[in-house]
C-alpha cells in the first residue's frame, strides 16, 4: 500500500475505528512513513481543535432573544386562542340569526297586499258567442289580475301597495278610465 491508500486507514485509526490486526499493520507502517505519521498527528490536531469550538458560544443576548421569541410564540398562540373562541361564538350566532332571518324573509320583498276582486262581468256584446241564442261577447285578452279596488262609480280607485318597510306605503289613485 502507498500513502494514498493508508490515508483512509490513518483517518479511521484517529476515529478509533480499526480492529486490532489492522491497527497493528498501521502502526508498523507509521514507524516507517513520516508523511503518514504527520497525517495522523494533524488529524488528531483537527479533532482536538474541533473540540475547542465547544467553548465558543453565542452571546448571552442571543440566548435571551431566543427565549423571548419562543415564549412570545407560545403566548401569542394562547392569546389568539382566547380571542378566537368568543369571536367564533359571535360569528356562529350572527350566522344563525342571518340564516333565520333569510328563512323567514326571503329575498323578495313582502308580498304586496292588495285587494283583488274578480273581474267584472263583461257586457254581453263584448264577447263572441257560440251560434246559439246566447249573447255574443267580445273576446277580451287575458290579462293578469289587475289590482282593482271596489269603488263606487263616482269615486276614484285607490290602490294601496304595502312594502317591506312599514313606513313606506305606495298609494295609487286611479280613475275609472285607468288614469
Amino acid at each position, binding site marked *: 500500500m502507498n*500513502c*494514498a491508500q493508508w*490515508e*483512509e486507514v490513518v*483517518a*479511521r485509526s*484517529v*476515529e*478509533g*475505528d480499526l480492529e486490532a490486526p489492522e491497527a497493528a499493520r498501521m502502526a508498523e507502517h507509521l514507524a516507517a512513513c513520516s*508523511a503518514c505519521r*504527520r*497525517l495522523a498527528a*494533524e*488529524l488528531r*490536531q*483537527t*479533532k482536538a*481543535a*474541533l*473540540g*475547542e*469550538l*465547544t467553548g*465558543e*458560544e*453565542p452571546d448571552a443576548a*442571543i*440566548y435571551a*432573544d*431566543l*427565549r423571548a*421569541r*419562543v*415564549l412570545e*410564540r*407560545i*403566548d401569542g*398562540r*394562547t392569546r389568539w*386562542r*382566547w380571542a378566537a373562541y368568543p369571536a367564533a361564538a359571535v360569528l356562529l350566532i350572527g350566522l344563525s340569526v342571518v340564516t333565520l332571518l333569510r328563512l323567514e324573509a326571503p329575498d323578495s320583498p313582502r308580498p304586496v297586499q292588495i285587494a283583488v276582486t274578480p273581474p267584472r262581468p263583461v257586457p254581453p256584446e263584448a264577447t263572441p258567442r257560440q251560434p246559439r241564442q246566447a249573447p255574443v261577447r267580445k273576446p277580451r285578452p287575458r290579462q293578469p289580475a289587475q289590482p282593482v279596488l271596489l269603488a263606487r262609480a263616482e269615486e276614484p280607485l285607490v290602490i294601496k301597495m304595502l312594502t317591506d318597510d312599514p313606513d313606506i306605503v305606495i298609494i295609487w289613485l286611479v280613475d275609472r278610465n285607468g288614469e
Partner: protein
Amino acid sequence: MEPTELALSMADSRPIHQEDRSRFEELLVRHQRLVLSTAWRVLGNLDDARDAAQEVFLKLHKHRDQWDESRGLAAWLYRVTVNACYDLRRRRVELPLADSMDVPYDAPPADELIDLETRKRLLREGLKRLTEKERAAVVLRDIEGLSAREAAEILGSSEVTVRAQAWKARLKLKKFCDRALRSRL
C-alpha cells in the same frame, strides 16, 4: 381560574397552568446552549441557528406531555435540532461543496505551523463545506463530545456509518485547512 392564568396549548385545547409555563421556561434555559450551539455548528450561521432552535423549542413545548426528564432530554433535543437544521438547509440555497474538498491524497506541507485560533477559524469555514451527514457526525462527535453510539442514536444511523462520516469529515477539514494555508503562502 382567571383567564390570565390560563393558556391554551398549541397541541390541544387543554389549558396549561402558569407552573407549566415556568417549568417549560426552566427547560428552555437549561437546554438552550445545547440546541443553539449545535444548530450553529451544523448550519454555520447564527441567524439560521436561531430559527432552527426556535422550532426545536416550539416542538418541545408541543410534545411536553411526552417529556421524560428521568431519561434526559438531551438525546431528543440533539436529534430534533439536527433534523431542524436539515430542514432549514433544504429551504436555503446550499453552499456548493468546494470540489477541492475531495482532492486526492497530497502530502501535507512540511513544517507548517498553524496556531490554534487560525485552525479554529479555518475549521468553522470548512464545516460549512461538508455534507449534511458528515457535518452532523463531526459536530456531535468532536464538538459536542458524544460517543459514536450516542451520535448514531441521535442521527438514526449506525455506529459504523457515524464513524465513517466522522473520519471522512476530519480528513476533508484537514485538507481544507492545508489548502487554505497554501493559498496564503
